[in-house]
């Protein structure tokens, strides 16, 4: 019975593995969950979901799968504390509201309508729906039975109708559906590592100590060395604004991954193409600019230069003086990029546009020629290739 559920989870975009399913089955065999569907829900969630941003997705799939199966947990369903609910509701309701309930066809009808409405709400949730915020006006709001956070249950969740534990979807705001790929990017960037010893000598150099001690006729002579650091220096130039807006997320990921991976990371922003100046703070791009000449003078040729941009623009912006869309540039961008490439021979261009579209844009072709074909797609594979190109 669980195998279809497993595939439903995988179809729903959860990366549930076979090991995890087997763990769940083993736990059930050992009787961890007992007979109740609540316990089963908690157990399967703990086995199959390993990321809190996926909890909401799991809740939705669980609800859709087990809506039909609930009857098999007959013993549990008998436990639904209708009595209790009714009493609680009566305690909380005014006479007026009670009259409204009668008008809706009594308590059972109301509960059904409520369930329906909740289902409707979860289905329409994506597109910003009218149900949220109706808590005050709808008769259901009076119960506080609203997925917005108030609930009908008591302190002990055992008294709650089991189906509703997941139907409440408490983890909704954790599902940002943004898959952070920083870990993968970091791993790719690790290939760029080149360790060197710099700074204070604070580690015991075992080999040298033994060697020196032996030469010292057996008298201990302790030798220390500095810790190894990643000595790779990176100059990151990011295209920002305009057509790059579509790629903001992947650029942010790359940026945050490289920030923590390199000790010497300098970054600059440009718009569309490189001209006589760039900037470091995007909010003050017009006030605080760094002349490109200064960059070539300040940083040594051991820096590795990485451009990130879609290189999608009018070819004029590259080859003509005055081609820039933002200002009058005395010299064409092609001259400036050549200057940078002369100072920093180890350079690549990462392009977030899909590679199969590159040939349709003349400016991409042009940039690629200027970079001596060292343009790579901003994907993990492309990053891997690009880093090989930097060595």
């Amino acid at each position, binding site marked *: 019975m669980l195998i279809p559920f497993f595939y439903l989870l995988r179809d729903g975009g959860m990366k549930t593995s076979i090991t995890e399913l087997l763990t769940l089955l083993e736990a059930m065999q050992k009787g961890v969950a007992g007979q109740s569907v609540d316990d089963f829900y908690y*157990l399967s969630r703990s086995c199959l979901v390993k990321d809190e941003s996926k909890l909401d997705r799991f809740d939705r799939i669980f609800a859709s799968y087990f809506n039909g199966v609930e009857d098999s947990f007959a013993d549990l369903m008998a436990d639904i504390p209708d009595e209790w609910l009714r009493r609680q509701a009566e305690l909380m309701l005014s006479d007026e509201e009670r009259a409204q309930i009668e008008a809706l066809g009594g308590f059972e009808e109301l509960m059904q309508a409520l369930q329906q409405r909740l289902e409707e709400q979860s289905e329409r949730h994506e597109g910003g729906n009218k149900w949220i915020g109706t808590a005050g006006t709808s008769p259901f709001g009076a119960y506080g039975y609203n997925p917005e956070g108030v609930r009908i249950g008591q302190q002990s969740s055992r008294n709650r109708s089991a189906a509703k534990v997941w139907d409440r979807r408490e983890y909704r705001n954790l599902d940002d559906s943004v898959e952070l790929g920083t870990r993968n990017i970091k791993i790719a960037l690790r290939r760029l590592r080149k360790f060197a010893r710099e700074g204070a000598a604070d580690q015991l150099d075992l080999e040298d100590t033994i060697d020196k001690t032996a030469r010292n006729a057996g008298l201990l002579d302790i030798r220390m060395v500095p810790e190894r650091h990643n000595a790779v220096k990176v100059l990151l130039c990011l295209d920002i604004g305009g057509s790059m807006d579509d790629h903001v997320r992947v650029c942010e990921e790359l940026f945050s991954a490289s920030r923590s991976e390199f000790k010497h990371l300098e970054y600059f922003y440009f718009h569309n193409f490189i001209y006589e100046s760039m900037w470091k703070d995007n909010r003050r791009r017009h006030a605080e600019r760094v002349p490109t000449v200064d960059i070539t003078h300040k940083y040594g040729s051991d820096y590795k230069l990485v451009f990130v941009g879609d290189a999608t623009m009018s070819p004029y912006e590259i080859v003509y003086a005055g081609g820039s869309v933002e200002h009058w540039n005395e010299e064409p961008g092609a001259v400036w990029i050549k200057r940078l490439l002369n100072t920093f021979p180890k350079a690549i261009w990462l392009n977030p546009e899909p590679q199969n579209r590159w040939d349709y844009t003349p400016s991409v072709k042009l940039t690629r020629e200027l970079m001596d074909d060292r343009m790579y797609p901003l994907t993990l594979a492309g990053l891997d290739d690009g880093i090989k190109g930097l060595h």
Partner: protein
Amino acid sequence: MANSKFTGTSTYVATDDLMMAVNAAVTLERPILVKGEPGTGKTQLAIEVANSLGKPLYEWHIKSTTKAQQGLYEYDAVARLRDSQLGDDRVHDISNYIVRGKVWEAFESGEQPVLLIDEVDKADIEFPNDLLRELDRMEFYVYETKRLIKAVHRPVIVITSNNEKELPDAFLRRCFFHYIKFPDKETMQRIVDVHFPKLKKDLLGEALNAFYKVRDVPGLKKKPSTSELLDWIKLLLAEDIPPEALRAKDSRTAIPPLYGALLKNEQDVHLFEQLVFLDRRAGSNP
């Protein structure tokens, strides 16, 4: 062993889903990974599990410089070198210089222990990968003495993470997972009751209201969490603040007393005071 179930303790309130996750991990002898907002009792969980099941606890706190090897064992070459200079007899046996780590200690424990690996995300991103075999098979190899160390009793391993780094899939697949979500008002009431059984009802009610109001202030860098609430109530009790002072109806007392225990961040305090000030101005204008 598996007949005793974790159901929370007199000082720790466990929700049903948390109990289920812990009991599954205990029964199947697999690690449990606990995530959640800071201050929701992740580390405390391991201590309470050990307490309530009557098992010894081994704590391994992870720092950014911690290596997986340090949890297993370390070879103290310097001590051996020094002993060789002094002509100490111990020097001939390399096992005298193998320093046991927390994982080794837990593996050799006479009864099933609880092992806490605290803040696993603080370490290097390769750290969890280096512990895969140890967590899975509960054994490791000491190369210096050519010895295989195998767990006598598979420990209950509780791993906590603050989400500073993502953990690798292979690691996650070997764990049970629980996300401690921020407690709702009822659970919070139970938690406070457990810590301050003699607290006046009205004071608690007002304190909880004020607390959730502070949590709702938009834009706070660090929202106050359970442990901050408990500290704050401790202070309120020590200062003997009357419940009325918390009600914040009167604009002059709109800032909860001793709010320094709730807000731990200069910008947050500043933001909070500003909001209260704006509120007050809006209130005074007809």
